[in-house]
């Protein structure tokens, strides 16, 4: 690493060398995050189809194999889907705003990937260890809604437009509840840095995780996350039985696939964040021998996979919410709930130190 830095310094001069070196280094690191992420998106689609098929007593994709190995039947399906999408024509409808029509999928995927910059995968492995990490993620995920709105508007189609309008109102409403749920986490951890939030949950076992004291907030956060990613049962923006395919009804081929990639990487992001801030991230459930032997990264992956399973489970189980019910749940249930919890948590934190230091409060307030 240092040798490469010296090389850059000699080649471009001292001033430019370090800037270009960090640029190149970060590009390589970004690829190291984005490529596995896209691969897991591909296999999340397969997992979704397989799991929902299992729940509905079907088989699911079982034709395309990898490298012709029979027991990998179905594992080649994401690759086949990707190739199919790449080969398809991107149709731009008449009367569509061409520039915005092409920009919309890009504006959806860019924030979905950019948010991963501050996600820590273990105590040291993080691309950008910034102070306001959680705020940055909130800001980035709130940008994602523009892709949907612009797609709906630029398509010059009524269905797409209705989908975009529904999505805009829904995402803005649930962002508030999500933000308030995270405020509780910040109050407990005294930090906006995701790594520090996980470190605040250390202490021996799963009892120390913020899941226990903030359980209602975990529910609010996770359900808002499902709503924010426009997944069933909150998928009124797509609503295939009402408005065909909602905001991406006019999209085809790779442009459509990019929307898909963004949706699934957002799902993984919500699951990752929930496991980092509520489920102790890379911390094992018990700090004793068989659990500590498994590396923290694996624990994080297990937690993410566990939460992602819920996303798929919800989709197979719940019918779609009616639009006014979505709004009621967001504004009249979640937001008052989070506000009450913030006040409650604040009052608990003002208790004298002797009370906070005694069992069971000393598990979480240090």
């Amino acid at each position, binding site marked *: 690493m240092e040798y490469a830095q010296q090389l850059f310094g000699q080649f471009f001069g001292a001033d430019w060398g370090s800037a270009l070196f960090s640029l190149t280094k970060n590009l390589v690191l970004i690829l190291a995050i984005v490529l596995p992420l896209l691969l897991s998106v591909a296999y999340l689609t397969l997992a979704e189809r397989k799991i929902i098929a299992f729940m509905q007593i079907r088989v699911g994709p079982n034709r395309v194999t990898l490298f012709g190995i029979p027991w990998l039947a179905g594992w080649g399906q994401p690759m086949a889907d990707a190739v199919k999408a790449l080969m398809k024509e991107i149709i731009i409808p008449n009367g569509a705003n061409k520039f915005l029509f092409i920009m919309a999928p890009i504006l959806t995927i860019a924030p979905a990937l950019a948010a991963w910059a501050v996600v820590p995968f273990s105590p040291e492995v993080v691309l950008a260890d910034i*102070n*306001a990490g959680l705020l940055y993620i909130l*800001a980035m995920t709130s940008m994602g809604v523009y892709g949907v*709105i612009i797609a709906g508007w630029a398509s010059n189609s009524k269905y797409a437009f209705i989908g975009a*309008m529904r999505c805009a109102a829904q995402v803005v409403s649930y962002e508030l509840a999500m933000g308030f749920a995270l405020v509780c986490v910040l109050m407990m951890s005294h930090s906006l840095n995701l790594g520090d939030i996980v470190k605040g949950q250390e202490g021996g076992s799963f009892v120390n995780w913020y899941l226990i004291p903030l359980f209602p907030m975990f529910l609010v956060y996770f359900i808002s996350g499902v709503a924010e990613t426009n997944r069933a049962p909150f998928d009124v923006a797509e609503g295939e039985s009402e408005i065909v395919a909602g905001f991406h009804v006019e999209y085809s081929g790779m442009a459509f696939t990019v929307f898909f990639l963004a949706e699934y990487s957002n799902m993984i992001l919500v699951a990752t964040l929930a496991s980092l801030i509520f489920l102790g991230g890379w911390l094992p459930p018990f700090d004793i021998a068989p659990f500590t032997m498994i590396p923290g990264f694996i624990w994080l992956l297990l937690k993410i996979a566990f939460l992602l399973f819920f996303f798929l489970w919800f989709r197979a189980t719940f019918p779609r919410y009616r639009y006014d019910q979505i709004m009621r749940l967001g504004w009249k249930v979640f937001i008052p709930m989070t506000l009450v919890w913030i006040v409650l948590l604040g009052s608990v934190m003002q208790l004298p130190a002797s009370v906070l230091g005694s069992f069971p409060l000393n598990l979480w307030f240090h």
Partner: protein
Amino acid sequence: MDFQSITFYFFATVLVASALGVITARNPVHAALLLVLAFFTCAGLWLLLQAEFLAITLVLVYVGAVMVLFLFVVMMLDINLDRMREGFWKWFPFGALLALVMLAEISMVLMGRKFSADQIPTPPLRAADYSNTKELGRLIYTEYVYAFELAAVILLVAIVAAIALTLRRRVGPRFMEPSEQVKVKRSDRVRMVSMPSEKKE
């Protein structure tokens, strides 16, 4: 020119160009989207000033929420450009006067001695672990607590007013009346319309 100034000039150019676009774009949706771009690049400039909390909050609040609702409204509007341009010359003197007043105010602030660059001390470079957020939180809840609470109360009043304006109670219960349903005749519900068939063009 070092890397930082190139970043600055890039952001500044995009900011000025998109801000100009906001006021020159014909289509209001384009104008709103250019305003989003302006906010975003402005946040980039604030990041260069090490104001990371303000920069991220700008993106979170203005780009993520306010402009989304703004776009929501603008997209619903059916704007007739010809009708909007009708009163241009009638209102031109008034607009010009407003612009002049604003120009005078801005130049009074910027040209004044108090705000010239040599009067303002250069803020010290902070270490990487310096937390902007903590510092702001401390100031808001100690030194500026009354101003902060006042702003919060004003916002609360606005929320209450908005709810009071839009609150509608349902008149009468939503039940079915079986007797009325039974009494319904065909003529109450169905209207026969005779329409001549249309020729294909």
